[in-house]
């Protein structure tokens, strides 16, 4: 059916690009100034939806990282550690307000650089990032009530490495609690998504944040490795793959420096026979196709009670056919571009393994743009627990469907993974929800909902999905030491 003859198709509704001005190249942000990298290296950042080169980003080398850590140390010792909490809080409030004022600009820039739909950056990424600064601003002068003793102390200089799936939001998750607790920061954004972090650097200047309190060193894996290897960093926080998280921890093991890790997941979304089916369908779609499935807590395994499997899958496929895939700048788009060529190759490789191993793939018949990196929403049925697509994190819009007969079997299958970040439960029976929520080995349980986030809600994994929590009162604790209680080693191993 052509677009003209169907009254229910959406006319294009593109967001304007005029709001943002992107410079042809960007420097590093060190000690309150934009400075050219000592490495003299730069690399292009592209729009994954069009492959257009947006700008050139500085590749921070060892020397650049060293300058950033030293700037953060100076800022900590001379300014930030001497500032009362209520004054630190005011800076965070300022940043939150400046972000609100420029929210639309951040949303557009994020969508251009990341490939995710403007609807998501506008309604989720940016508002949540703002909430994180606002929420943590209020903690800065109340830390003695956070549960880390009556005189909690910051660690000093914090090294932070963030992923490309929620660039500004992950920055907010890291920077806001670190500053509220009195630490200074050296942050490395992800290689493919640095632009909003660099706009954030400008905001730090606009807010009058003292020089060196926040330093942003863009670059690739080697930049991150230099940061992890730097002895001047007192505490680390990393969000990314389990593999890299483990490598970081091996580097830090000997010195016992504290580290927070938010790593991978293979979230089970369990639908019991008594679930509200249409509501569950929406939750499953939200769980796996939100942000192209580039979500560590994605509900990438659907566990469905056997007796409702056929009906449920039929309805799910009908719903997926309505997903609008395409131009991320279009306000009607549901599924945007895959963030990079590398990630697309990984998704293709894993889905091919699914077919080879005997699972059955289904995709809607939707058109894809000719340029850029794209992948259709995909569901696999006939999946067993041994298939790679049931065990490995795909980090794309690919759902693996497994079945169960009894609630005990559902829990056993759900927990049969080294990951433990998030899980979903769909049922209309309160006692069953509470039972399943208790039995599931995961740090976040969404019952009759999925992929909900909030600055006040602790987020983080069980098992190999990570260490520590981010968000809420619990998220402050990894950034504080207990130096007032003399018999407790400061910060060492204190993870909650």
């Amino acid at each position: 059916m052509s677009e003209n003859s169907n009254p229910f198709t959406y006319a294009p509704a593109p967001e304007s690009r005029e709001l943002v001005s992107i410079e042809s190249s960007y420097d590093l942000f060190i000690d309150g100034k934009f400075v050219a990298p000592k490495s003299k290296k730069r690399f292009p950042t592209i729009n994954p939806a069009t492959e257009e080169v947006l700008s050139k980003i500085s590749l921070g080398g060892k020397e650049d990282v060293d300058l950033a850590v030293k700037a953060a140390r100076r800022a900590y010792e001379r300014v930030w550690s001497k500032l009362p909490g209520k004054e630190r809080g005011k800076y965070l409030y300022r940043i939150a307000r400046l972000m609100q004022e420029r929210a639309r600009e951040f949303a557009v820039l994020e969508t251009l650089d990341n490939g995710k739909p403007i609807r998501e950056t506008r309604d989720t990424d940016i508002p949540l990032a703002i909430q994180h600064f606002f929420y943590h601003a209020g903690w800065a002068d109340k830390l003695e009530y956070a549960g880390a003793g009556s005189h909690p102390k910051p660690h000093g200089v914090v090294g932070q490495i963030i992923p490309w799936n929620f660039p500004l939001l992950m920055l907010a998750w890291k920077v806001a609690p670190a500053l509220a607790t009195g630490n200074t920061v050296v942050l490395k954004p992800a290689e493919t998504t640095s632009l909003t972090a660099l706009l954030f650097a400008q905001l730090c200047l606009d807010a009058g944040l003292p020089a060196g309190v926040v330093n942003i060193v863009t670059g690739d894996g080697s930049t991150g490795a230099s940061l992890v290897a730097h002895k001047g960093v007192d505490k680390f926080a990393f969000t990314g793959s389990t593999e890299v998280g483990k490598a970081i921890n091996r580097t830090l093991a000997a010195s016992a420096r504290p580290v927070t890790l938010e790593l991978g997941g293979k979230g089970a979304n369990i639908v019991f026979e008594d679930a509200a089916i249409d509501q569950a369908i929406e939750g499953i779609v939200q769980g796996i196709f939100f942000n192209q499935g580039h979500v560590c807590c994605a509900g990438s395994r659907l566990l469905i009670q056997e007796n409702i499997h056929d009906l449920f899958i039929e309805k799910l496929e009908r719903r997926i056919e309505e997903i609008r895939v395409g131009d991320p700048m279009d306000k009607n788009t549901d599924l945007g571009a895959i963030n990079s060529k590398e990630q697309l190759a990984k998704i293709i490789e894993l889905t091919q393994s699914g077919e080879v191993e005997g699972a059955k793939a289904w995709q809607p018949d939707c058109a894809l743009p000719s340029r850029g990196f794209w992948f259709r929403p995909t569901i696999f049925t006939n999946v067993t627990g041994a298939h790679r697509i049931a065990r490995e994190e795909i980090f794309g819009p690919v759902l693996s469907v497994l079945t169960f007969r009894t609630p005990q079997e559902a829990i056993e299958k759900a927990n049969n993974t080294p990951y433990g970040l998030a899980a979903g439960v769909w049922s209309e029976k309160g006692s069953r929800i509470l039972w399943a929520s208790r039995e599931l080995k995961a740090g976040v349980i969404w019952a009759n909902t999925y992929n909900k986030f909030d600055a006040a809600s602790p987020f983080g994994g069980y098992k190999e999905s990570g260490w520590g929590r981010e968000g809420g009162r619990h998220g402050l604790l990894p950034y504080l030491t207990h130096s007032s209680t003399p018999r407790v080693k400061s910060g060492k191993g204190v993870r909650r």
Partner: protein
Amino acid sequence: MSKERIDVKKTYKLFINGAFPRSESGRSYPIYRKGSKVLLAQPAQASRKDLRDAVRAAREARSKWHSASAYNRSQILYRLAEMMEGRRSQFVEEIMAQTSASKSVAEKEVSEAIDLWVWYAGWCDKIGQISGANNPINGPFYNFTSPEPVGVVGVFAAPDSPLLGLVRAMAPALVGGNTLVVLASEKHPLSAITFGEVIATSDVPAGVINILTGIRSELSSWLASHMEVDGLDISGVKSGSGEIRALATENLKRIADFDSSTSPNRILALMDQKTIWHPIGI
């Protein structure tokens, strides 16, 4: 003919799944009275297979211990303190024999160990209240956070103070609802096995606490790298903790490392916080 009675000596064995087996390897090692060549005992020298058996027992005991109500666990641990009090003189004698402690020093250690145990027993039904939260969400959701045990925890008893070093390491992990594999002090292992007898006569379910004696340099790396151990309390490790941390990275074991023996944070270090969301609506 001498009228002196020949006393009955104890065989010190391992404590796994509620039973007292010898090491499957048949190995044992001598412990002498402090400062002499007088043999005190030949405790078992646990093998890697013994350690695996202990981990399996601890894994299987998880649901029994965790699903017991917090009030119930609290009473069970308190009763364990009662059993310790009943064995007071045996603990004192063993401490004196293994170390050069005087009677008053040994008695002080036993009292402190019992009192610490009572302190921790009371935490079972309180730790969730001081560390959980009801989170004020920006939306129509009920959202709450509560701590849960990580699972199986490997515990390193401190080498000095035979009984207190053991109790300090075990109690916090146990209170959090974890099940334990305990490495006894290599030099002073006898108190640990007598403690096993206390456990066996308390109501702690079999497998919840498993105690291994043997050579620390062998056992540490096996315990730290075991993929079915979820956490470690390494506060009692005096050297080589960097290597243990590196090995523990393989499955991201939670690590507790504290100087303080009386901190609720030590309990929480071996617990994971779970956050549950549910929509609110009519």
